[in-house]
C-alpha cells in the first residue's frame, strides 16, 4: 500500500485531527444509530444503565443488538456467548490488520490492550485509511483522538435514545437502526478501489446473507474464511502474474 505521506506536525495535532474527523459525519451517523439502540433497549424493558454499559464495554453495534434481542427472548447465557462471539469474531482479524498501522516502539503494550476495546468498523475504517500515511508517532494519537470522542458521543446518544420511545414513531427508530449498515456499506464503497479489497468485499457480501439462511450462527465465520481465502488466492495469483510479466 503506497500512499502520499500525511503529517500533522505533532502528536497533539494528530489527536485534534482525529477528533475533528470523528466529530463530523461519523459522530452524526453513529450517534443516530446509538439513539436507535437506546430506544431499542428501552422497548426491551431494560434500564438505561444496561444500555449504557452495553455501549461502554460491548462497543460495536451488531453484537450489542444481538445481545439485547437474545436477552429479550430469554436465551441462555451460553447461547448469548456463542452468538455474540460468532458475530464479533471479525474483531480479531480487524485488530490484527490495524495493529501494525497504529503501533509504535515507545507505547507500552497494555495501552493497545486497552485501546483495542474501541476497535469497531467506523474507527477502524478511518484509521486504516489514514494511519498508514502518517508518521509512526502520530498514528495511535490519531486513532485515539478519533475513537474516544466518537464513543463519548455514542454514550450520550444511547442515553438520549433510551428516553425517545413514545416521543418518536417506531418507524423513525427503524430508520435510525438502518443508518448503520447503510453507512458501513457506503464507507467501504468509498474506499473500494484499494488493492485486494474488492474481491473480498464482493464475495463476503454474497456469501454473508446466503450462509445466514442455512446457519445463522456460523454464517459469519464461514463467510470470512471461505470468501477471505478465495479473495486471498485470487489476489496472490494476480500479484505473481504481475511480477513475472
Amino acid at each position: 500500500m503506497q500512499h502520499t505521506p500525511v503529517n500533522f506536525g505533532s502528536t497533539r495535532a494528530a489527536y485534534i485531527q482525529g477528533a475533528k474527523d470523528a466529530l463530523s459525519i461519523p459522530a452524526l451517523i453513529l450517534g443516530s444509530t446509538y439513539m436507535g439502540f437506546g430506544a431499542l433497549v428501552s422497548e426491551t424493558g431494560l434500564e438505561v444503565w444496561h444500555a449504557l454499559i452495553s455501549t461502554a464495554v460491548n462497543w460495536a453495534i451488531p453484537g450489542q443488538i444481538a445481545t439485547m434481542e437474545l436477552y429479550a427472548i430469554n436465551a441462555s447465557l451460553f447461547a448469548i456467548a456463542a452468538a455474540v462471539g460468532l458475530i464479533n469474531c471479525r474483531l480479531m482479524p480487524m485488530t490484527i490488520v490495524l495493529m501494525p498501522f497504529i503501533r509504535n516502539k515507545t507505547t507500552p503494550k497494555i495501552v493497545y490492550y486497552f485501546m483495542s476495546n474501541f476497535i469497531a468498523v467506523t474507527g477502524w475504517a478511518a484509521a486504516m485509511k489514514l494511519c498508514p500515511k502518517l508518521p509512526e508517532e502520530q498514528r495511535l494519537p490519531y486513532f485515539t483522538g478519533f475513537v474516544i470522542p466518537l464513543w463519548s458521543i455514542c454514550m450520550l446518544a444511547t442515553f438520549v435514545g433510551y428516553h425517545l420511545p413514545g416521543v418518536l414513531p417506531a418507524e423513525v427508530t427503524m430508520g435510525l437502526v438502518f443508518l448503520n449498515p447503510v453507512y458501513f456499506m457506503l464507507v467501504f464503497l468509498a474506499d473500494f478501489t484499494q488493492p485486494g479489497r474488492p474481491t473480498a468485499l464482493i464475495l463476503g457480501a454474497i456469501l454473508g446473507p446466503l450462509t445466514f439462511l442455512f446457519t445463522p450462527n456460523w454464517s459469519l465465520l464461514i463467510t470470512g474464511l471461505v470468501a477471505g481465502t478465495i479473495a486471498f488466492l485470487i489476489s496472490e495469483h494476480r500479484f505473481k502474474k504481475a511480477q513475472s510479466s
Partner: protein
Amino acid sequence: MNGLDSFLSSDFMAPMAALGVAAAVTYFWRGLGVAVSGKMDKDSAIFRWVTCVAYALLAGLIARMILLPIGPLAELGLEQRAGATIISLAVFFLTRKNLLAGVTAGAVALVLMARLGPL
C-alpha cells in the same frame, strides 16, 4: 427501596449477566487480536490473508444486516430494505460519493416506506 437495593435486584442483575458474557467474548477477540498481531509480520502472506478475511467478514456482516436483519428492522419486508438500500446507493453515486447524502436518503426512504408501504 433505596438506590443500592435497586442495583442488586434480579431485574437489574439478570441483564447484567448477559451483558457481562457478551462483553467478555467480545473482548476476547480484540485481546487475542492484539496478542497475535505482535507475532505477525505485516509483509507476510498470512497477514494478507487475514486482511482478506477481515474485509470478507465485514462485507458479509453488512450485507446480512441489510438483507436479513435481526432486531426492529426484521419487521419490514425485504423489498423495503432493499429498495431503501438501492435509493441510498443511487444518491451516493449521483452526489459523487457524498456519504451523508447517501446515508440520509436511505434512512429517509426506509422510514417513508415503513410508514406508507413499499414505493
